[in-house]
């Protein structure tokens, strides 16, 4: 693999992490309202998956969507401005964390209703099929979402119509305060693909190269008209369900063990240095650049104006 490509993966993950941690600080400083769902710890899934598709392909996202959008090419300044509820935000401050999106980079939207985005992504895949434009759609959702009826209906329809779509379950082991074992009996969510005669694959969601690899095959299948797949990426969220979550459902030890031993960024950096002979001097400038970028994003956001109340009724209709 090209070194530039590998460094690109690292940059994406580092950008996501830096953004998320800054969002947490800004929220705690009272600069961000509403409910914020962070994806720190899950970077490798978004980075690996989006590296496997093209700029003009589509993704569908969830309430925990910052990482998905950044990996697809979203700008961190417009994102930060959205979280700050400013007019310069991607959604003009109307969407916030739950609905953050940039349709110009192919994000169909972040849906705050669990699993509601999955049925919508089928539609994008359907138009690609009808328009014969060879685009592929990635549909992101969590483990808890796979207990929703919409997940089932979407999977069945996608398999029946062999839509050019890949379903990616970011299994971070919890749905809000509920561990997987308390919301389903199934151990591997990937087996649910059997119900639709669809390939179901489990992958280590902390290993960006493994994610990239399985996704590359699944995307090729989809693009070649051979139908959808369900990829279950086992991952973990380092922070609470939303900022302020008391986290009574898991131990501090569990979290710290993941942060130490299974941090996707640490793991990949070590691999870059060891297996790919990348030198620290090649990585440092990337990190510096990103830190600056996020600093500027915060400045951009805080200097941007809030929406004008007089514009409240805009964009309800065409």
């Amino acid at each position, binding site marked *: 693999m090209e070194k530039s490509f590998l460094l690109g993966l690292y940059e994406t993950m580092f950008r996501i992490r830096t953004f998320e941690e800054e969002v947490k600080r800004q929220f705690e400083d009272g600069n961000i309202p509403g409910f914020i769902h962070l994806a720190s710890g899950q970077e490798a899934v978004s980075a690996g998956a989006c590296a496997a598709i093209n700029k003009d392909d589509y993704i569908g996202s969830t309430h925990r969507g910052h990482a998905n959008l950044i990996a697809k090419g979203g700008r961190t300044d417009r994102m930060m401005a959205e979280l700050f509820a400013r007019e310069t935000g991607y959604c003009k401050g109307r969407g916030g964390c739950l609905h953050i999106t940039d349709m110009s980079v192919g994000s169909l939207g972040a849906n*705050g209703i669990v699993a*509601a985005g999955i049925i*919508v992504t089928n*539609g994008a895949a*359907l138009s690609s099929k009808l328009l014969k434009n060879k685009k592929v759609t990635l549909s992101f959702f969590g483990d808890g979402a796979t207990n929703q009826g919409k997940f089932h209906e979407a999977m069945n329809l996608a398999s029946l119509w062999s839509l050019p779509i890949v379903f990616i379950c970011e299994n971070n082991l919890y749905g809000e305060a509920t561990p997987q074992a308390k919301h389903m009996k199934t151990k591997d969510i990937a087996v649910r693909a059997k119900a639709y005669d669809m390939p179901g694959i489990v992958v280590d969601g902390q290993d960006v190269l493994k994610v990239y690899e399985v996704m590359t095959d699944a995307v090729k299948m989809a693009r070649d008209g051979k139908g959808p797949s369900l990829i279950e990426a086992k991952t973990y969220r380092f922070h609470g369900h939303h900022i302020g979550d008391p986290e009574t459902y898991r131990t501090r030890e569990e979290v710290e063990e993941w942060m130490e031993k299974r941090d996707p960024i640490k793991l990949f950096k070590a691999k870059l240095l060891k297996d790919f002979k990348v030198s620290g001097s090649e990585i440092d400038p990337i990190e510096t650049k990103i830190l600056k970028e996020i600093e500027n994003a915060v400045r951009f956001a805080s200097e941007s104006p809030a929406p004008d109340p007089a514009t409240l009724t805009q964009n309800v209709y065409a």
Partner: protein
Amino acid sequence: MTEMKLITGKDAIRDALIEEMRRDKTVFLLGEDLEQATFGVTDGLLEEFGAERVRNTPISENAIVGAAIGAALTGMRPVAEIMFADFLMDAMDPIVNTMAKARFMTGGQAKIPMVIRTPSGAGLSAGAQHSQSPEALFMHIPGIKIAVPSTPYDMKGLLKTAIRIDDPVLFFEHKMLYYEGGEVPVGDYTIPFGKADVKRKGKDVTIVAVLAMVKKAMMAADILANEGIEVEIVDPMTLNPLDMETIINSVKKTKRLLTVEEGARTGGIGAEIAARVAEDALDYLDAPVKRLGGSDTPIPFSPVLEEAMYPTEDTIANAVKQMLG
């Protein structure tokens, strides 16, 4: 003068679909059993347009509406069918929380040019889960346009508009109107949303009626005419946008408002219209407003009970006389 032909409501819908699909390649249909359609609306379309554009789906209302939304977001103009309006309840989340809100939530990035067609209304002894008229519910959901045609002419013209505009539209087709005949121009025409149609002119009482109730109101009007009472019948055509101007101008003339609908009376279409009149034209009213609607009960299977729960030409005529007497 444009050439006209007599067709049924079912064929008016069918013709609108065929003409729009021929005109615009991005228009396609999806829904359950479109090949052998419950009310025959889409029969034969598969033959002309093929299985890619006439898509039979599994019994998955959420997936149907969701797929339509996603396709609309990405360059298509889907026309989804929900087999009975009662089943809209199954897809209420994508309709209310995604379809209606996506444009606003994204600050205007999302455009959702889609139509959901669905047969509503009673009259077939189909019981509580296959006879409902839920139109009024959606007036309370900002972001959804709503069409409620009462004649083949209106059905065809409004459906073409629904398919061409860039907002999501809920298009209600009353089952009983599928088999009613009416004059329709040969060839292409559209009817704008938000413009009420005065179906009959009169000076004594304004009747606002929708869907199958328009015909009942027209029958009542004939009964009343024999007694020298001239009612004006206003058909809103669309509930969102709602043309209150035409309604209020009529009320200013007649000084009396009667609303007639098939859905449950409480919280119905008439509630909003009566409230608007009480806000904006109160001083013109010479009599209390009146609302007729379905009884506030589920819909019984028994034909005698089903009959008893809806306004008829007689109950409408009597209501008008009460308002005048």
